[in-house]
């Protein structure tokens, strides 16, 4: 029966546990987040699954906790609240893996209960617990985002535990799918932007060539000092514009260089001094090289440009002082990885979604063109690689570029 589950009862200090329940079971404050648990039924993974039971009926709650105690062994940590607001408070303070939710609470009723939980914590799987004759409502709850439902009257502990495992697994699949879809959409958007930017930059570059050529001719042919001065200013502005269009072309993969077999370690060593000057004197810069040659098929100039842009980005992130680490690795024989990490301000998920878009900058377009990372993206794509970003506000960021090894790249 679902009302009677075994395992360990746990409660953090903020938990609202019905007074009648206190003293039953072992109350343990969870102290760590569950990561990478084994979701196979019967798993003996080291981290218990954090289960939150929101059930206002103290007797039902006791039946359930008894089952957790008797049959759950050390697989679960059970937190119990009898009110929704107390449950939401637990969710805010404790890394809960799955919620067992009674839909009929004193202060809220039916699908509203589920909606309240789903709105506040959309990524936490919910198993709805329902009483007699509630199957229609239970089915509706699946349509409203619950992973599963259990009729208290018919579920035994095995069924309950299985529901918990499957709910977590299903939610994970759902989250992975959503993440893949978001990523795919983002890539499509970047590709479309690349096509547009590349077309504009190509035509713009042709016009710039004419401007640069004519301003050069003016400086060479005119004896008028004023004209000379203006022509030089035009040429300088055109040079800057040309540099920008080159970055746009890089982003759109149109800036093609000659790809040759190179050792990424050598490129880094050759440019170490330059990197140090870009990183600035107040940055603590460290290099960690793969022991084996990191051979890739690449345009060394573009790779240097990519590294410089990543280091420049890291320098901006750390502000007045901080650490930047550049690392090369060979995670598998088919690829080489370059990671540029910093312990700077980090990025919000929203910023992370946009960083590779051209002209996206957090510093304002007057300060930065917003093309550095989009050029990096283009260079990586042009080399058949991928770029991933890990970032946390206040803790820093890591940009991980993976490029196929030379032999693989030749075959692509």
């Amino acid at each position: 029966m679902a009302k009677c589950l075994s395992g360990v009862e746990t409660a953090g200090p903020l938990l609202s546990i019905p007074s009648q329940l206190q003293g039953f079971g072992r109350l343990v404050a969870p102290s760590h987040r569950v990561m990478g648990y084994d979701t196979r039924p019967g798993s003996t993974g080291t981290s218990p699954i954090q289960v939150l039971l929101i059930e206002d009926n103290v007797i039902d709650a006791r039946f359930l906790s008894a089952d957790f105690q008797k049959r759950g062994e050390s697989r679960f940590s059970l937190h119990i609240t009898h009110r929704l607001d107390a449950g939401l408070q637990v969710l805010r303070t404790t890394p809960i893996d799955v919620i067992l939710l009674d839909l009929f609470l004193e202060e809220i009723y039916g699908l509203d209960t589920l909606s309240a939980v789903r709105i506040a914590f959309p990524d936490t799987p919910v198993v709805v617990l329902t009483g007699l004759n509630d199957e229609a409502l239970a089915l509706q709850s699946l349509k409203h985002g619950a992973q599963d439902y259990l009729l208290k009257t018919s579920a035994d502990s095995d069924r309950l535990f299985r529901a918990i495992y499957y709910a977590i697994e299903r939610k994970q699949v759902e989250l992975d799918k959503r993440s893949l879809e978001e990523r795919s959409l983002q890539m499509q958007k970047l590709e479309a932007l690349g096509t547009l930017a590349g077309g504009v930059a190509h035509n713009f570059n042709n016009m710039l060539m004419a401007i640069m050529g004519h301003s050069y001719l003016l400086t060479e042919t005119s004896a008028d000092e004023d004209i000379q001065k203006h022509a030089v200013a035009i040429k300088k502005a055109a040079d800057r514009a040309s540099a920008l269009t080159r970055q746009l072309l890089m982003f759109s993969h149109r800036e093609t260089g000659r790809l040759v077999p190179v050792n990424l370690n050598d490129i880094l060593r050759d440019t170490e001094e330059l990197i140090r000057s870009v990183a600035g004197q107040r940055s603590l810069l460290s290099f960690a090289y793969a022991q084996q040659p990191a051979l890739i098929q690449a345009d060394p100039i573009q790779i240097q440009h990519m590294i410089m842009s990543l280091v420049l980005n890291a320098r901006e992130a750390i502000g007045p002082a901080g650490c930047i680490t550049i690392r090369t690795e060979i995670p598998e024989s088919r690829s080489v990885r370059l990671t540029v990490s910093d312990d700077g301000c980090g990025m919000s998920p929203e910023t992370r979604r946009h960083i590779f878009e051209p002209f996206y900058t957090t510093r304002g377009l007057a300060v930065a063109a917003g093309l550095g990372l989009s050029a990096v993206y283009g260079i990586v794509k042009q080399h058949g690689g991928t770029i991933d970003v890990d970032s946390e506000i206040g803790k820093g960021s890591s940009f991980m570029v993976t490029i196929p090894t030379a032999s693989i790249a030749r075959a692509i």
Partner: protein
Amino acid sequence: MKSEDGLLSRIADLELVLGRLDGDLELLRELATLYIVEYPNQVQDLLDAVSGGDADKIRRVAHKIKGTAWSFAAGPATDAARTLEETKDFTDGRDASELAGRLSQELGRLRLALEEFLART
């Protein structure tokens, strides 16, 4: 505990409950105690709902009581709670009072049965 235990077996099939609890008599005693503590609250909630004339609240309280009664395999109390919960129309206030009165009576019997069980075990 035997099924022919007069009063008890007619009100709640605790042998069945014990089976659900893997024969854990101590746990059943604990749950029975919990019910006895909770009983006045349930009855009070029921009376409040009926005197307030709030049909929705009456059904909610009945729903909750039904779950508890089922947990103790208390057939008559479960049935009384279900009837109250499933009543569509409380326009005649007396109906709600009558049904709630019957449920309250069954809950009282359940409490007595559980007290008897605690005394015997």
